[in-house]
């Protein structure tokens, strides 16, 4: 019955089952934590905690779709994060506006340069990506240490710290509501323009109620998210009566949303995205079709490098300092989120929104278990199990749908 409804709604079974799993996990954790997990305050924290993993997972989708791997993203996060912190604390006087802007540029430049270097080794020198980025994993962790000889670099500029979603790190209620309305308007516009396009080429669009239900669900999710973020109290920002104002959407979440929207668009609507998927589906076909396969592979590592740098900015901003230990084990969480989100190691299959859902799932479990006082080793064991179970489900599902 349920699968019939899903088919009628033309929903992706993989995505909808992930959303279903997420809802179940959220309810169970909420009951176990006596309402703590689904409190607005915790959900705000969760949204911020998701961002670092999710930002990098968006790029990892492309990498794994093209049959490559990048194990260096965690170390590169540390290296570019340390470069940003060094620029701010050592190269510029404290509190300088130019300092924090240049520190972001420095992090992005390092991320792009390192990515270009690793990409060249993979695409031009033909060294397997696993080896290149395994070496990168070691080298850039070491480089992160050498930036300040292991010292923690602080303090970072208050405006910069807002990028981490902490103090003043959200956009407030009015802007959040406006953004939510904009998103809802986009959902409606997208549905109607798709129907118009289909009619123009004589394709029968789905029944109106199907699009209405789908659009309604999406708008409901947007409204729920915006509402939760807006009721999350900001204790550093009180009104005249002394009650905390609502936070609104966190800045890291905004950065993530821009990246997700951009990379989803690139995957579905541009030549570049089409070629990455074609290359992952059949590298020989891509070559015989005259696609510039070297450049495609090369570009992937530049992308993950830049995204690692963005994640590094969010991480250091959130911590308020630069420490060389940041991003440890992050590459494994990023790859896990990507795979849980439905990206296949066989290549050619994967989606950016899926990887974000995977990142939310991992962050939710981690966050919930922290609330339940589960120890760090136990959390790692549990997330490992979830990774295996999710891929196992996928294998079983693929088998059943193939017959």
């Amino acid at each position, binding site marked *: 019955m349920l699968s019939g409804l899903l088919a009628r709604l033309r929903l992706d079974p993989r995505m909808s089952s992930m959303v279903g799993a997420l809802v179940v996990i959220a309810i169970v954790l909420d009951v176990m934590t006596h309402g703590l997990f689904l409190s607005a305050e915790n959900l705000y924290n969760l949204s911020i905690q998701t961002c670092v993993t999710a930002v990098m997972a968006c790029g990892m989708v492309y990498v794994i779709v093209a049959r490559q791997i990048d194990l260096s993203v965690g170390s590169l996060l540390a290296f570019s994060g340390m470069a940003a912190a060094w620029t701010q604390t050592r190269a510029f006087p404290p509190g300088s506006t130019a300092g924090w802007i240049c520190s972001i540029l420095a992090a992005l430049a390092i991320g792009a340069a390192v990515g270009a270097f690793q990409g060249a080794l993979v695409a031009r020198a033909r060294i397997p990506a696993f080896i290149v980025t395994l070496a990168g994993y070691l080298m850039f962790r070491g480089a992160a240490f050498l930036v300040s000889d292991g010292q923690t670099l602080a303090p970072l500029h208050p405006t910069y710290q807002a990028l981490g979603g902490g103090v003043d790190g959200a956009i407030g209620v009015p802007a959040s509501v406006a953004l939510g309305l904009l998103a809802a308007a986009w959902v409606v516009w997208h549905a109607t323009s798709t129907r118009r396009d289909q009619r123009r080429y*004589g394709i029968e669009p789905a029944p109106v109620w199907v699009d209405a239900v789908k659009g309604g669900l999406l708008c409901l999710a947007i409204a729920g998210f915006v509402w939760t973020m807006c009721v999350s109290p900001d204790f550093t920002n009180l009104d005249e009566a002394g009650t905390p104002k609502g936070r609104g959407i966190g800045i890291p979440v905004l950065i993530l949303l821009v990246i997700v929207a951009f990379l989803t668009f690139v995957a579905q*609507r*541009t030549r570049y995205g*089409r070629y990455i998927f074609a290359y992952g*589906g059949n590298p020989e076909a891509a070559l*015989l*079709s005259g696609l510039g396969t070297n450049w495609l592979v090369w570009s992937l590592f530049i992308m993950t490098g830049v995204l690692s740098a963005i994640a590094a900015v969010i991480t250091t901003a959130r911590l308020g300092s630069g420490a060389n230990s940041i991003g440890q084990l992050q590459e494994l969480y990023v790859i896990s989120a990507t795979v849980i989100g439905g990206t296949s190691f066989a290549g050619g299959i994967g989606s950016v929104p899926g990887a974000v859902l995977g990142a939310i799932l991992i962050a939710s479990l981690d966050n919930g278990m922290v609330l339940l006082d589960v120890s760090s080793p136990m959390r790692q064991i549990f997330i490992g199990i979830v990774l295996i179970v999710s891929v196992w489900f996928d294998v079983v599902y693929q088998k059943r749908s193939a017959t």
Partner: protein
Amino acid sequence: MSEANVSPAISPTAAGTPLVQVRQLSKHFGGVHAVDHVDCDLYAGECVGLLGHNGAGKTVLTKMLSGVYAPDSGSILVRGEEVHFESPRDARAAGIETIFQSLALADNLDGPGNLFLGRELMTKWRTLDSRRMEFESSKVIARLNPNFKNILDPVLRMSGGQRQTIAIGRALYFDARILIMDEPCAALGPAETRMVLDTIKRLKAEGIGIFLISHEMHDVFEVCERAAVMKNGALVGTVRIEDVTQDDVLEMIILGKRPAKALTSG
């Protein structure tokens, strides 16, 4: 060796400049001469069969014509003008479409995605125009195989004949004047083979020149005007199909010698 000797068998139906002239083309991989000073012509509206054992050099020869490999020496002339292909894109731009034996399809993409791979139709915003590609693909596919409806499935889920249809459709849509088909019927059932052979005949009638690699002597004798036989990278000879029997051609393939009576042809 003079020019007259190298291409003794000229199709009587074709006149003027050949669509393709291959002159002393060579390619070696290490010490192996995959293609060794091969000459070959293709005229508009004719089908030339490329025959030979596995490893005779047929595929390498066609891959040079389709821009995948660069020749070590020799030249390729298209409509009388010498061409140098840096990539498959250049060959396509010169009007040479190739249907590779592997079909070169990305299994995860749908029919239109594969049909337009590398030559996507774009909107005025420089984004992929998926609807238009879907529309155009269904038109091309309907011409080849009216029963083929599920073109929006990933190619992975299609039958051998459907995959072949996508690959042929890809060549047709872009108005190929020169078509290279590498064993197009190898994995097909009788009905699909018929579809491919009928397509070849129709394309010839439209003035398209076709190189057909095949091991199926029956197919070659049905659709080809001439046959070029290769052995160990070298050209054994080119014969007119009407002048020879299947046994003659088999002898050329196996022994690497030209039958006596075919020597006089052309």
